[in-house]
């Protein structure tokens, strides 16, 4: 089963961390990526630029309108994600708990299953 583990970060919370704590987060992610690669569960992981760099695109009367982001005005924003393929939701949750952000108050880790296109209808 495929899952996206998304990391919702809060710049104010990150800024309040010590350099050691920030370095520990980086090292924790590197270790986590290595583990996922080795177990054959990692599909892809990406970090995203600051939301101040986002462009919000809409089309009005057939014309594209581009404004500076972010789309949602919030304290937290999507900082990055892991796309994994693992046994079940329990395993995805177990993996998510290893992400260093999960241990920090004010940072959020969310696990959601990826949908697939086909299905079964037996009843």
């Amino acid at each position, binding site marked *: 089963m495929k899952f996206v583990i998304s990391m919702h970060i809060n710049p104010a919370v990150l800024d309040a961390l010590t350099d050691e704590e920030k370095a520990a987060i980086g090292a924790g992610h590197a270790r986590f990526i290595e583990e996922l690669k080795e177990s054959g569960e990692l599909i892809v992981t990406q970090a995203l630029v600051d939301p101040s760099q986002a462009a919000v695109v809409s089309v009005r009367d057939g014309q594209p309108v581009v404004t500076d982001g972010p789309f949602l005005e919030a304290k937290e924003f999507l900082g990055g994600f892991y796309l994994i393929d693992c046994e079940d939701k329990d395993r995805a949750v177990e993996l998510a708990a290893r992400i260093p952000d999960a241990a920090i108050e004010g940072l959020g880790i969310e696990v959601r299953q990826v949908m697939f*296109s086909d299905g079964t209808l037996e009843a």
Partner: protein
Amino acid sequence: MTVATTEDLLRTLAPQVLGALVRRYGRFEDCEDAVQEAVLAAATQWPAQGVPDNPRGWLRTVAARRLVDQIRSDQARRVRESVTAAEPVPEEVPDADDTLLLLFLCCHPVLTAASQTALTLRAVGGLTTAEIARAFLVPEATMAARISRAKQRIRTAGSAFRPPEGADRAERLRVVLHVLYLIFNEGYTASSGSDLHRPDLAAEAIRLTRLVHGQLPDDSEVTGLLALMLLTHARRHARTTGSGDLVPLAEQDRTRWDRALIDEGTALAAAALGGPRLGPYQLQAAIAATHADAATAEQTNWPQVHALYLILSRIAPNPVVTLNRAVALAEVEGPAAGLALLATLDDDERMARHHRLLSVRAHLLERSGDLAGAYRCYRAAARATASLAERRYLESRAARVRR
């Protein structure tokens, strides 16, 4: 000989040669590499130079040579600091079909289901890592890591390459059948429909189950599983519309069912039921055969389907069987009886939020005339499923009862 038939021949022979090598030398990982190299050599040489008189012997000789080279170089490394180990002398191994032994190894209980399926497809199915990766819609590097980790775990577990015996054997065979069943189901639940080069896992599972059936023709669960696969596969063209929407069993165009597969599956299902011991695959095959026997959905022998689910719920009780029995019961005694049976599942925490429970309840509520309740359940089921096709179907049902 054409390229396609060389490929088929290699896929048949590779697991046999691998089985023979592993039985002789142990070292599953090294043997697997050696056989892959031999297969690669054959795939390039045979179409040009012709297939050798004894293709299996050719593969075994080439693979054994690679393996012995590997063992020699490993030993040479060790010899520098220790005494010379007795070098294994390659020996003629009997031509016995070792496919089954290989399956036992690939479906080793120390592995996760995902690793068991991947390793089985590679070592027994003869699929390349790239093909398996495409089949599961993951990058090749992900699948390569998974397969290599699975091989390591088998080595660490110190698994001897000998057939399991007694009660252990029955349990291990149960795992093998479950892995084949998972491969078959994967072919139906994860397909993207957009990748034309995606290997047909359902067909591959049938091919592998045929191999096992060939080895164990008297095992009624193996026969039952093969029958179940054939009878399910027979409906493949009728189960979706051209645009990929799902068609429920009751609404399928039965003239589009594959008659040849149904005939074969029905005969196997009947043979399986004649066996000494009743198992879950035989019963599921018998249920599928009962559906296949009805020219129209209205002609379905629901009392028989219900009776079979009742037996199944006694020998292999699980919430999904109860769910399916509720569908059959509703056909026999009316929706209220089905809904009452579903209510027994509400205390099961995992099941209560399961989309199948919600969608079956929605169907039965719709039939009982409670359209508001049906609407709520269809919507809840649509939110709970991970299948896009199923969500579309459930949303269309919800829209229908809302009117």
